[in-house]
């Protein structure tokens, strides 16, 4: 149900808007972290990777702030129905976004390990996968702000592409590892990077389910949700 009119208590509106703004902010930071981490990975930029790792602290702080505000809102405003779902969704989404940030940090942490690696073929696939994953995160958080259940559904479908990418990279890297045993170390890191990106896609899907529930009050039906084929 769309909420068009504001609360009679304007301060309530302000509180909810601030909460949403926090989520948007976290989303922006997380997206930036993924993009930066991937760039550093491709360009072997160790210093940039350090910055990404440090910036993760900001995301953690924002998550704590979001949780605090959400709890305060529940205590003081006694939100009901749509408002309640929004607040609980915001609470959970902040946790998930923080985890996404952690995955980006993990990717950045592996950059120094790949410093001395030569050219690894499958590396070129990763940026595309990251782009899709980042796009999912971006779109799903937009959907949260707009309370758009449709976009959330579409985001879920895009997870298939991410999973496909992962399968393909997995096979490619496996082949590469078998052909270049001296590069196994670095290839393994790339495998983990791919796994992290795939997890980011899954988390974006989780956020999409929360957005859907907050917007409609119903859970996504099984068939419309892309069932994750991996644990």
């Amino acid at each position: 149900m769309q909420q068009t009119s504001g609360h009679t208590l304007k301060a309530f509106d302000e509180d909810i808007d601030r909460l949403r703004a926090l989520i948007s902010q976290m989303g922006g930071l997380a997206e930036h972290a993924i993009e930066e981490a991937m760039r550093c990975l491709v360009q072997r930029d160790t210093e940039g990777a350090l910055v990404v790792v440090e910036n993760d602290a900001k995301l953690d702080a924002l998550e704590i702030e979001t949780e605090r505000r959400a709890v305060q809102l529940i205590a003081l405003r006694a939100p009901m129905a749509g408002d309640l779902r929004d607040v609980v969704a915001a609470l959970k989404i902040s946790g998930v976004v923080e985890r996404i940030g952690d995955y980006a940090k993990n990717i950045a942490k592996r950059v120094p390990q790949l410093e001395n690696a030569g050219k690894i073929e499958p590396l070129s696939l990763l940026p595309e996968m990251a782009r899709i994953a980042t796009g999912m995160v971006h779109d799903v958080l937009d959907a949260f702000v707009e309370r758009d259940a449709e976009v959330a559904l579409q985001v879920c479908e895009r997870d298939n592409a991410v999973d496909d990418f992962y399968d393909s990279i997995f096979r490619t890297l496996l082949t590469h590892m078998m052909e270049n045993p001296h590069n196994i170390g670095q290839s393994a890191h790339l495998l983990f990077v791919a796994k992290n990106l795939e997890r980011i896609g899954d988390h974006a899907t989780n956020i999409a389910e929360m957005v859907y529930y907050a917007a409609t009050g119903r859970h996504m039906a099984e068939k419309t949700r892309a069932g994750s084929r991996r644990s």
Partner: protein
Amino acid sequence: MKEKMPLTSTTPVPSPSAAIAADAQRRGPSTVDEAALPGGHRADEREPVGGSLGAAPAPVAVAPPVPSPGESPEAAPGRAPKMRAKSVSVFYGDNQALKDVSIDIHEDRVTAFIGPSGCGKSTFLRTLNRMNDTIAGARVTGNIELDGQDINSSAMDVVQLRARVGMVFQKPNPFPKSIYENVAYGPRIHGLSSSKAELDQIVEKSLKRAGLWDEVKDRLQDSGTALSGGQQQRLCIARAIAVDPEVILMDEPASALDPIATAKIEELIHELRGRYAIVIVTHNMQQAARVSQRTAFFHLGEMVEYGKTSEIFTNPRERRTQDYITGRYG
């Protein structure tokens, strides 16, 4: 139409959180409004509040079928409603205060009526025990039944009806008599006791059930109006209980009381629920959420939505209900 609620997942459980959710479903609800009833759960009442927010792919097969407003969603099969209203309209002169309200009231349940002021909820409450008869120019159309009997027909004695359907009012109004007399008056005029000893028993039982006995047992001859507000209201509840009603109507019973007295009244309502069908009108939404199992939202004389309290307050169907509940009304 009863929905099917599979208790275990039908797809392989991929993540630990799903297992926890499924287990919670099996264990039954731990929600405020479905506390353990004497006499066991009814099979249809085990849906947890709100469900999990999608974090676990717990199976939720189909969205529950949308019942038409007024029909009891998931009424237990075979259990007829205690009171049933069909297309009830109330006119004050030419002014229509209630438009075509249909609703079922079940026993063992607290039904709450919420809505902004002037929406007709108190008017509708008063039609249930024909208190609108006392207002000149009031006209009631439609059908209201108590145990299948039309209460507006000439075959129903309105005095008996009011003994079977008791009422507690917004402002506590004990009689200016002693506490004992307040409670004993009803049974006396209805001839419910044949001796003083029996009357004493009825008075004691009613005061105990109303949670007032311990506070007044030493001073039954004191004036009823000398009690505090909360005690007076409980006295009025004891007075209503003393005539052994089947339904208790409460018109904003706690709105004149402080929070502690309010909490006591709410706890009392919870205790009384098993014995009487209770209908409560309240303008305090949180109270309706705390106290009732079914909620009906009234707006401008219409009943907009009627359903389980847990659903109305987490996911109402109608835009007007949502607006009112979230404080966007007005």
